[in-house]
């Protein structure tokens, strides 16, 4: 199985997720295992319905697993209370959603301050941290604009800034380019890559192989099962990127 190194940031072992739909029980994740180490840039690829969204919800602590184990930064997440999960989401995970998920009535700065409000920080410190994050994504000039006054790319950058504001160990991106055109999508991906180079651990969920290519490591989700690309299980740290041909084939399979 996947290595059980002590310093794994995300360590998922034999994770099962079932939903009850009417009288039937649907198993979405069928014993998935995955380890993510600090500094990783992992892409989870799969067609729609493969269970990758459920995977992302579980990793993001938005949903709880039915069975198996999920250790985040050394803490077992399964069985934690709602409050504890909220705390983990606040401190450990920065979300980047496909639809940006910014609050329309708040300005860019206020949106970035929101997770810091829930952390209970004083106003001055909040402002500084949010400003720093916005400057990091190149939006230092437009902090007092509302989402409706920003372009799609800028909105996604605000969302990334919001995710960065709390300095979380993991950035969780769910189809970050899904709602953007080619060019701005590329810009956002470059930004994510840059963040990875600066040391942020990134988990990216996508169905687009071109997007997945940008990641240092790709895992394929299909029918509730996860396949690590060949030769990666033992040597993922040593090998930065697969030959393109292998990934191309994976896309065709997916």
């Amino acid at each position, binding site marked *: 199985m996947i290595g059980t190194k002590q310093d794994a940031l995300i360590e998922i072992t034999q994770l099962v997720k079932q939903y009850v739909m009417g009288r039937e029980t649907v198993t979405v994740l069928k014993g998935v295992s995955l380890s993510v180490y600090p500094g990783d840039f992992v892409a989870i690829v799969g067609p729609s319905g493969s269970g990758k969204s459920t995977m992302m919800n579980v990793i993001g602590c938005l949903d709880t697993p039915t069975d198996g184990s999920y250790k985040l930064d050394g803490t077992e997440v399964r069985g934690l209370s709602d409050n504890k999960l909220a705390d983990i*989401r*606040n401190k450990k995970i920065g979300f980047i959603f496909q639809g940006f998920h910014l*609050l329309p009535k708040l300005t860019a700065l206020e949106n970035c301050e*929101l997770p810091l409000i*829930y952390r209970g920080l004083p106003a001055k410190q909040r402002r500084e941290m949010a400003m720093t994050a916005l400057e990091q994504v190149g939006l230092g000039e437009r902090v007092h604009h509302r989402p409706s006054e920003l372009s799609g790319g800028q909105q996604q950058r605000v969302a990334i800034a919001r995710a960065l504001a709390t300095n979380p160990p993991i950035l969780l991106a769910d189809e970050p380019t899904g709602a953007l055109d080619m060019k701005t999508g590329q810009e956002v991906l470059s930004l994510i890559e840059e963040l990875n180079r600066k040391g942020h651990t990134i988990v990216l969920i996508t169905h687009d192989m071109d997007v997945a290519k940008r990641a240092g490591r790709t895992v394929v989700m299909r029918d509730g099962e996860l396949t690590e690309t060949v030769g990666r299980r033992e040597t993922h740290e040593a090998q930065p990127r697969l030959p393109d041909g292998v990934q191309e084939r994976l896309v065709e399979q997916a």
Partner: protein
Amino acid sequence: MKLSQGFRMAFKSVWSNKLRTALSMLGILIGVATVIALVGMGQGSKNQVEQQVASLGTNSLSVTITGRGTATSLSLEDALALADISNIEAVAPTVSGNATVKYEKTSTDVTVEGITGHYETVNDFSVQSGRYIAPVDVRNTQKVALIGVDTATELFGSDDPVGEVIAVNGSRFTIVGLLESKGSSLTGSNDEKILIPITTAQKMFDSVGVRSISIKVEDLDRMDQTVAALEASLLETFRGDDSSYRVFNQEDAVETLNSVNETMNTMLLYVAAITLVVGGIGVMNIMLVSVTERTREIGIRKSLGAKRRDILFQFLVEAVVISGIGGALGIGAGFLGSEAIGIANGTDTSVPPQTVAIAFVFSAVVGVVFGIFPANKASRLKPVDALRHD
């Protein structure tokens, strides 16, 4: 999350939905305004009743003779004899009827009461100029009259009526005194009447006995014994026929009036309370809509680390802000309303400060009570479901 931050968030959200906030506030506003206005009105009318009662004096009794014919009527002598009962200070028998009064070319219909001189003490009703009806007037069936201020103004304008001669049902009467102004009491206007000697009235209205007697009691504490003695005496006079007379205690009347007043006020307050509850349901309705509408917002907030109590608090504070502002505006509207009612009805209204405080606190409590359900609903949403909602 800090308290002040929560309030700022709630105000922002409430402010950004002005129309909806205003409409849901309206229910609470009307409720609180109704409470304030009704309490103000109730207090006003209670004060008024108390004033009237004070002017009547609680130490008086009245006896009404309901029987007809010689066997069941009370002669003037019998009536005056009631003064012998212990604790009775004075007895004022009256015979009354309506008559047309004419002076030169002006005429008007008034109540004419035949009285004795004791009427002055018993009813606390004196003259401002001239003299009162004297015993000699009664004995000699004199055609003299006292005139009420309103009637005097009607017949004589601003001229002094004392010494003038008027025609009462065609008979000539000399006005010997102008009564003081007393206003209206429970039995009608006191200023639109003419008082003449009782013997004269008996002749004029062709009445054998007296129809009613006002009695003044010395000691209020012995009222019950006095009433009992009075009834015993009357029962003897009427030879056991207790259906021919009625003894009426002024105090009882006051109590009855007050309790009627009280019942009315309590009923109105219930109505007002129901209005407030309906207002609260309005707030709950709006908050529920708001929760559904903002499901995605709740999801986003939760994904960013909002705990259940943060969301609960946010929506609860919003509900309290809506109902609290509604309550505050309602207090203002209630004050204006009670003033307006006071002016329209010509009565006094007064709003006690504790009512204002209670109404405001109550409206805030309504916010909490009716906010809990939607807020709880919002806080229980699973982040994954809430985020998916659109």
